[in-house]
């Protein structure tokens, strides 16, 4: 495992470990976030994403390791002295305050004393930035989910934190709004230049938004790199599975081939890994011509995704194989339910974890 520790970073974690009972929810986590960087954090449910953010913010005390903010060790500091913003999945707005008072809360009650007119000016500026002008006097029960999300964001950003942690901030929104908020989030952050560490359960969100992407698995970092790199070169079979764009087959290497229950596959790219597996992207599969590597599976069903179609096949031993057809490559092929097809791909498109 490579250590992701750099100098001059905004956030630096060293060997951070958090246990609940004798189970480690975080196991020796080390990485750093540079100034102005947008880092997304992806991992399956229960992998420790929330615990990690809470430990950084100071809501949970780690058993071992260090958290540094701009070079200062804050491991033992209470949350209100860390200068880290936190956006909660459930928004956690102050229900007894208006939109304006929610956003002004940190300015009014935080460490630095400032005049009320300064508070007003900065609050109004921030409300303007997130597009909430006109809603100042509303109660927070009288605004939509997307607007609540903006209030939560504005409230955090207005005090100019050194780093903002976001725990699935778009999780409570519907798909359409998520898309719009993604764009908004990037725009707002670029305006302010504050580094973000954004937890998401959605691989497309993680790939679309991050300058860099951390993949967390059972409390440890599996991979940390630019989204493109993670996407093209997953470090291990689990990462390939979380990315939700790879067919992953079990099996083992025998000579020049990776042998699965569905037959041998010729080896091209090899990646060292503790568990052997073979991965190939959904959109690399074809049924039109034999491309060199492949297996046979019966067609089950299709799912229309707008810009693409997902076709689902099943091998004789029950493994579902997905084929993604981008509609920009012409109309989709018609398949007959229950009939067996040969799914194939170029050997160099597959990754053998050995």
């Amino acid at each position, binding site marked *: 495992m490579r250590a992701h520790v750099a100098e001059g970073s905004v956030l630096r974690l060293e060997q951070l470990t958090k246990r609940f009972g004798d189970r480690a929810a975080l196991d020796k986590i080390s990485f750093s976030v540079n100034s102005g960087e947008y880092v997304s954090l992806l991992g399956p449910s229960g992998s420790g994403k929330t615990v990690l953010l809470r430990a950084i913010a100071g809501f949970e005390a780690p058993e071992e390791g260090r958290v540094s903010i701009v070079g200062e060790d804050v491991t033992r500091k209470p949350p209100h002295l860390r200068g880290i913003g936190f956006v*909660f999945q459930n928004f956690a*707005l102050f229900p*007894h305050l208006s939109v304006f008072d929610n956003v002004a*809360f940190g300015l009014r009650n935080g460490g630095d004393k400032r005049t009320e007119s300064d508070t007003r000016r900065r609050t109004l500026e921030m409300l303007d930035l997130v597009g909430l002008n006109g809603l100042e006097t509303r*109660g927070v029960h009288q605004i939509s989910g997307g607007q609540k999300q903006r209030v939560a964001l504005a409230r955090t950003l207005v005090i100019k934190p050194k780093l903002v942690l976001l725990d699935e901030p778009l999780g409570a929104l519907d798909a359409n709004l998520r898309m719009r908020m993604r764009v908004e989030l990037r725009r707002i952050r670029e305006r302010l230049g504050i580094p973000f560490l954004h937890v998401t359960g959605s691989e497309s969100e993680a790939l679309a938004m991050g300058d860099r992407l951390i993949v967390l698995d059972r409390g440890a970092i599996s991979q940390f790199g630019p989204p493109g790199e993670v996407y093209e070169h997953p470090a291990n079979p689990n990462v390939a599975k979380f990315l939700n764009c790879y067919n992953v087959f079990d099996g083992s290497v025998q000579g020049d081939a990776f042998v699965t229950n569905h037959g041998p596959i010729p080896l091209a790219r090899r990646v060292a890994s503790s568990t052997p597996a073979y991965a190939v992207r959904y959109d690399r599969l074809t049924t039109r011509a034999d491309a060199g590597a492949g297996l046979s599976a019966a067609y089950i069903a299709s799912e229309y995704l707008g810009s693409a179609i997902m076709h689902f096949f099943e091998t004789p031993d029950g493994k579902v194989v997905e084929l993604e057809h981008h509609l920009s490559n012409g109309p989709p092929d018609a398949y007959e339910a229950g009939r067996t097809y040969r799914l194939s791909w170029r050997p160099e498109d597959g990754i053998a974890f050995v």
Partner: protein
Amino acid sequence: MESRLLKPILAVYVGLFLLFLYGPFIVLGILSFQQGPEGGPQFPIQEWSVFWYKHILGLAPPSRVSPLPIGISLTRSLTLAGMTMVTSTVLGVMAAQAFRRNFKGKSAAFYLIVLGMIVPGVLVGLGSALVATTTGLERHWYSTAFATHVVYTLPFAFLVMLAIFNRFDASVEEAAWSLGVPPATTFRKVTFPLIFPGVLSAMLFAFTLSYDEFSRTLFSSGREQTLPLAIYSTFAVEIHPNVFAFGVLTTLFSFALLTVYAILMTLSVRRAKRVAIQEAV
């Protein structure tokens, strides 16, 4: 079929229950309008009058029935209930706040606090009287009796607050901290406003329980009587309808208290709506 039979039966049952519950009070209410000063505390009503109400307020002409000694004891009881209410509520909120975290001896502390409402009042009263005598402490309504009242009402305030904190979403506090707001300010500006309805309930419990507490006060209050004791001591001599008139007045007082409680509660719960109305204007 079954419900057609069940419903009238249940209705009758509820009717009887309400009659049983409020019957005594209705009888008291009627008898309080007995003619005075000759009229006794029994039916029939000889003549409707408000004589006994005047008698309580000291407006009736002097007669053989001595006035109820309520003036001073009422003040005492209200003061004591007020002191108890403030102390128990503050302690109850603080204790419940402490119980949100885990600490050593948590369950022992829980049972110690709750014990105060389980132990029979007479025992507590006697016990505190004995302690006072052996230590040479003088017994007063504002010292020994006050202590027993707090021990008795604290568990109620504590349990109310515990239930409130149980449903409380701590992430709003964490949000405040992450905005750089210190924990003490966070409690004042976020936690307290949100638990305020619970605090009101705790106050109501503590006040009413202390206001008509009898058994603990009997032994621990010394010579200066609180209201329940004063009323009881007049029963011991002879009963006149003035006691009933007084009962009606205290009940009205309780209703007033409940009304204040309901108004405060509504105000605090509907805060968000009020913001909306301001905006609409």
